């Protein structure tokens, strides 16, 4: 085995897996609490990137401020979808499938809206210097190091918030038994509002980490949303660390598969592993089995 290749692939897998972990937690925190298959999560992702691009390139704001605008936009768009679409539908007893269909529709329509407003061209943010660090044959860029750190700090913060705070326990209560939670006075509307804002904020961070080294495109949100969904289910719905582990596992598996296989077989390996895990543990790696 080529050990230097293994080392580089491991580092690459951690970098990619960390972003997947963040996506998994962002999707999982919304899904676990609301049971809404929130495909329109893609909207928050793209909105964050385009808002930052707009703030930086059109308003001429410094990059740091533009990123804050992006974060706010991501959270706001996620929240708006809950308030404008999902909440009224729940009020009218719409089924989860109905809500999913609407979410699907929003996720399809929004990229076209972006295209109408910004055009189909790639949009870029100003790019800070991105030096590379080497250790033997292994290299990693400063952007990647920052992305890994930011992702895991946020994941830890969310996990702590959910497990250690009073409001976090309200979220857990809504997830496990919403009827009982409401009966004991937990405001479901408020809980839903917070999880949508939180999940959307996390996905906005992921979007901005991507856009500061890549480009914003109208359809950029769909793939990360699907990755987040896979990571959350692989790791276990309802567990922040599970979703994070699912994402990290996806990244590492995909990367390690390149030791022996062509890279375009990576998704086959990843999805094969995912199906195997879900066959053996339908609740995911760290999820709890239904009673």
């Amino acid at each position: 085995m080529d050990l230097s290749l293994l080392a580089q692939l491991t580092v690459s897998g951690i970098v990619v897996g960390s972003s997947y972990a963040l996506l998994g937690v962002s999707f999982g925190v919304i899904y676990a609490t609301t049971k809404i298959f929130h495909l329109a999560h893609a909207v928050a992702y793209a909105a964050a990137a385009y808002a930052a691009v707009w703030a930086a390139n059109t308003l001429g704001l410094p990059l740091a401020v533009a990123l804050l605008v992006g974060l706010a936009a991501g959270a706001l768009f996620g929240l708006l979808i809950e308030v404008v679409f999902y909440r009224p539908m729940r009020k009218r007893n719409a089924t989860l499938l109905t809500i999913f269909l609407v979410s699907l529709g929003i996720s399809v329509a929004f990229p076209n809206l972006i295209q109408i407003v910004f055009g189909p061209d790639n949009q870029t943010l100003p790019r800070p210097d991105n030096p590379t660090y080497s250790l033997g044959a292994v290299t990693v860029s400063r952007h990647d190091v920052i992305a890994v750190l930011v992702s895991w700090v946020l994941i830890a913060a969310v996990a702590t918030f959910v497990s250690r705070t009073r409001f976090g326990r309200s979220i857990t209560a809504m997830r496990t038994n919403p009827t009982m939670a409401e009966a004991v006075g937990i405001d479901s509307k408020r809980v839903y509002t917070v999880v949508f804002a939180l999940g959307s904020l996390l996905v906005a961070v992921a979007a901005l980490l991507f856009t500061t080294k890549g480009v914003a495109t109208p359809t950029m949100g769909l793939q990360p949303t699907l990755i987040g969904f896979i990571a959350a289910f692989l790791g276990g719905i309802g567990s922040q660390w599970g979703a994070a582990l699912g994402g990290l596992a996806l990244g590492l598996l995909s990367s390690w598969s390149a030791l022996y296989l062509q890279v375009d077989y990576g998704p086959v390996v990843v999805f094969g592993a995912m199906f195997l895990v879900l066959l053996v543990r339908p609740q995911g790696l760290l999820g709890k089995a239904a009673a």
Partner: protein
Amino acid sequence: MSNRRKLASVPSRLSFPSVDVSRRGFLRGSAVLGGVSLLAACGGNDSGSSSSISTAKVDPEVAGGLNDIFGPGGKEGGAGVTLSAGMLLAITGQGSFFGKVMGNGAKLAAAQIKVADGINYDLHIADHKSGDVPTALTATRQLVTQDQIKILQTSYGAPSEAIVPLIGQNKLLSFNGGGSSPGQVGKPFLWQTRMIFGDDPCPGGLAWIAREFPDAKKLAIVGTQENGVAGASTIAPEAWKSLTGGEVVANEQHDVGATDFSSIVARIKSAAPDAILTFSFGDDAGYLVKQLREADVDVPVMGIEFTEQAAKVAGASYDTYNFCTDFYDPKNPNPWNKIFVDGHNDMFGEDPEYYGANYYEEVFFVWELARRVLADGGDPTDTTALQEALVANPTFKSLYGGDASATGEVTFNPDDHTISKPMGVFKVVGGQPEKVADIVKPEAGADPATALV
């Protein structure tokens, strides 16, 4: 080119929470979904609809210039003849930039021809959603049955290969200037207006590397299963061996639309090549080059395409990128090219690029064919007659090549329906391509070094 179909099927493979669907709920959801879908359809601004050609932004003086180049308007130029034409483009999805520029090229051509008192090129644009094959088939059928098109300008490899039977059955005189692939070669009524993507220019590109970097012996190849497949599997390895006596030390494949090349970069780095040849296209090439340089892989990279969009992705690292292709140069002083560039700026406020040029040129090929058929007393709406005129004289005026006093020329091969165009090797300098060598497609069995002119 194609979209990222692989992930579109992901959700249906996993279990969803059980839900109770009431009929009312379903209908309500459907209504809302219909509304947003309508909005989605609006995004594909020309999808499946007739695109009325406005001549408002066309300088009337263009008519004189075009008539000088192509001949007079009026009866001789096909005035009064309407040709219903379709375009099958990536209006929505990942490749919507390409759909925009291709459509713009054809719209400008139709408007300029109208101003020059030529044919009425009645344009209908349909969307294949960036390479979705079933969508392409449906859209083409609609163009045929509803819009009754006679001419088709198609794009991308996979959708164009899929509609080959429809093109033949309906005798649609068709051109593809944005995704030529071996599977489209020699098909009835389908003509390629770009060199075979990747395959034709790569011997010339490798010959240039061999000349400029004489110590380079180990080559890494990166590509996809979409375009340049033969180039990656046979043409490039054989040419490299012949040129340098060296070998291919890595031959990597990635999915179209990839943004993360970390695993490929790691494998390439491990193989320690002296040069890299990539058949990656669109934004993929930009991401690949950027990530190679970030990983301190600093060997020369030869690609087969340049787009401004990929340059945005790669940023400053694209200044280390070279490519070989039938590249369009908006600065070419060729008089027709000048009319094209000025017209494009008047109509769209920007310089044209490669794909816009190809689809613009195709409309003029049709006009030229209509003129020839009319001159012979034939029916210019009969696509068989138009194609016979093409076969009889496969040479056309071109935006490519030429000089300040004359247009360039391109020639179709009537046997396999491919085209021969000037090609070159280019370096990216300051984010813009600069030609460093002329290349040609070598004759079958010839020394690949002869590709370098």
